[in-house]
């Protein structure tokens, strides 16, 4: 019958389409982003952070980076605590993404010091030689438009102060982007909860390794440490390592657990074996450097 009645077909098709739509798209509004979802400490973006977020959108960063950590073991180990609904209540639009050409950024905030981000955005390959991320040094030449940003804050209904808007004068896209990246995922104190604790005695398994063996571990240093401490340990974003004289256990602990407040990330996800190799490599090299 409906095959001869176009209006009836349109009505029936609309009904068929609306059932799933109502159940899976409209109904969830009753639960999502409600009081039950609320997480203490999650705050709206500041004017500078929000502008950074809009630049992230403008340049399509979400085409290569996701912003949601799934509750899966390798994922939590790699990026940090899994994402929770209440962390995203101020995100318009959401930026979870669908493809990880680059790493997930949901827990990036506070992982590295600002200087790391400035250098990395300017020239990603200077820190990660084989990356395919394009250079964003041109951000430093784009001055922000405080009036426009104020309008955005008004539209979003986010709190801001006149002083905050005035401070945007002279700041550029790069400053905004770094401010945004440093906010990502840091509203909940997950880093404290996820801090690694070392139990038991630390015994250097490579105490007897010879010079030749140890120099073979150079690539581990180059891949993980050189970006901040320099290819020859001369220091840059992080301190110079030559001349430092920590013993094996302390150096291992610093690398393995990181110095959360000092901008040194934890490298526990490399595993104890690689961290011991790094410890021995750095100590051997330090000895040479201090001679």
């Amino acid at each position: 019958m409906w095959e001869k009645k176009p209006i009836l077909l349109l009505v029936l098709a609309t009904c068929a389409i609306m059932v799933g739509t109502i159940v899976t798209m409209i109904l969830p509004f009753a639960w999502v982003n409600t009081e039950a979802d609320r997480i203490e400490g999650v705050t709206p973006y500041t004017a500078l952070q929000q502008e950074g977020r809009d630049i992230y959108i403008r340049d399509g960063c979400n085409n290569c980076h996701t912003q949601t950590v799934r509750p899966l073991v390798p994922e939590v180990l790699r990026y940090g605590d899994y994402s929770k609904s209440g962390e995203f209540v101020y995100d318009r639009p959401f930026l979870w993404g669908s493809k990880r050409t680059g790493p997930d950024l949901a827990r990036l905030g506070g992982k590295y010091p600002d200087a790391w981000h400035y250098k990395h955005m300017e020239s990603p390959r200077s820190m990660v030689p084989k990356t395919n991320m394009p250079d964003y040094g041109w951000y430093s030449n784009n001055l922000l438009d405080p009036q426009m940003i104020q309008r955005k804050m008004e539209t979003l209904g986010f709190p801001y102060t006149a002083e905050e808007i005035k401070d945007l004068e002279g700041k550029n896209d790069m400053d905004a982007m770094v401010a945004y990246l440093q906010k990502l995922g840091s509203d909940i104190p997950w880093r404290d909860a996820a801090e690694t604790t070392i139990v038991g005695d630390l015994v250097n398994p490579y105490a007897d390794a010879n010079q030749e063996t140890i120099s073979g571990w150079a690539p581990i240093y180059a891949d993980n440490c050189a970006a901040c401490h320099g290819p020859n340990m001369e220091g840059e974003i992080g301190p110079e390592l030559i001349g430092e004289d920590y013993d094996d256990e302390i150096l291992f602990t610093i690398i393995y657990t990181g110095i959360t407040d000092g901008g040194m990330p934890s490298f526990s996800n490399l595993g104890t074996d690689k961290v011991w190799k790094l410890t021995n490599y750095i100590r051997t090299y330090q000895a040479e450097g201090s001679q």
Partner: protein
Amino acid sequence: MENQTYNYAIVRSFVTWSMIWGLVAVLVGVIVSLQMVNPDLNFPPYLTFGRLRPVHTNAGIYGWGIGVIFAAFYYIVQRLCKVPIWSDKLAKFQLWLFNATITASAVTLLLGYTTSKEYHEMEWPIDVMVVILWVAFSINIIMTILKRKEEQMYISLWYMMAAIVGVAILYLVNSAAVPVSFFKSYSAYAGTNDANVQWWFGHNAVAMVLTAPFLGMFYYFLPKTTGVPIFSHRLSITAFWSLIFMYLWTGAHHLLWTPVPDWIQTLAMGFSIMLIAPSWGSVFNGYLSMNGQWHQMRENYLVKFLILGITFYGLQTLQGPMQAIRTFSAFIHYTDWVPAHIHMGTMGWVSMICFASIYYLIPRIYGRELYSIPLADLHFWLTLVGQLIWSISLWIAGVLQAGMWNAMNSDGSLTYTFMETMVEMYPYWWARVLGGVIYMAGLVIFIYNIYMSVKKGEPTAVPTITTEGRA
């Protein structure tokens, strides 16, 4: 001589423009695939991967996909209803608005005006253009159907009508936003809600743009080409209603393991598996319509495109539900497996049907035979080989990277850093460039063949149509 009253001029225009946008989409696709292997090919601010990739996807979906839908359905609706389209003027307006919209989309996306929502990146003024465009098309199609001279509506028209409604609902809901300026707006939904609405839209854009109309085209062009009717009318009815009912539940399979409520994910997973049935209903209907006609695969280049198209559709609708299973999604999601899956659908299923439709239409709207069948055969093989290289290499890449992301040492630490897994992708990304270039070569040959047919093709044996549109 009733044919002479049909408006074929509008069909010709949409064929031409859809091919132009198709070439743009594929060309930009090849460019961004090269940017993936060499970051020095990014030219900021306008020509960076992040800005070009939406141009590629939107030119492909809206310029090429919807362009061919407009062309094919303006033809099909007139033939199936045995009346000319309701309004020539509205159709002409729609053609201009279509090109203005696609052009404006490409320009604004390169300028960085984007909402970031996938397959819906364009800012709100362009949303308004799209809505007017779709309303114009819908009115013209529905009014033509209402004044039809053939009482029974054929399957193709059901699919188009469902898509008309579906696209309207999806697009309107997902574009709700609060404007800050002419070029910037914020989504009406926040965080998890926004994600859920977006992927309800995203997955059903696949249903209502890249599936329903193309099934309608397949159901029309296959019997027309082979000369034998569709195998089962009853099967097509069952498949139609269950398809448009089930699709809408599945959007959250793009959001498995995210903060979206668990029960929505579970429903999405279940309905995704069930979707195999209606999808394969159409696949079987297509295959069984070939009973006794399989020899045409050798003899008729058009049948090859149609049958390979529906084959890709069948593979796509098996692979998709597999990815929608939580455990498999946990492993494969966010890797290059995903673009490989999408491109099997777009380069295989959708584009094969687009090519077949245009090949079928050319003699009928221009009154000239195809310029070269060997070139069409070559086009077929380049399309097939290009697409297979593209997808197979990235399936391998996806499994490889997923394996490396998940690899753990005996002490519970991760075996590989992110960069160690990324550098392994380069050879496969090069293979993708190769697949894309082969595919583009096929597309260029296709456009050349169509151009030469229009210019130099032999007049069709029975000149049943005029080339001047409506008498």
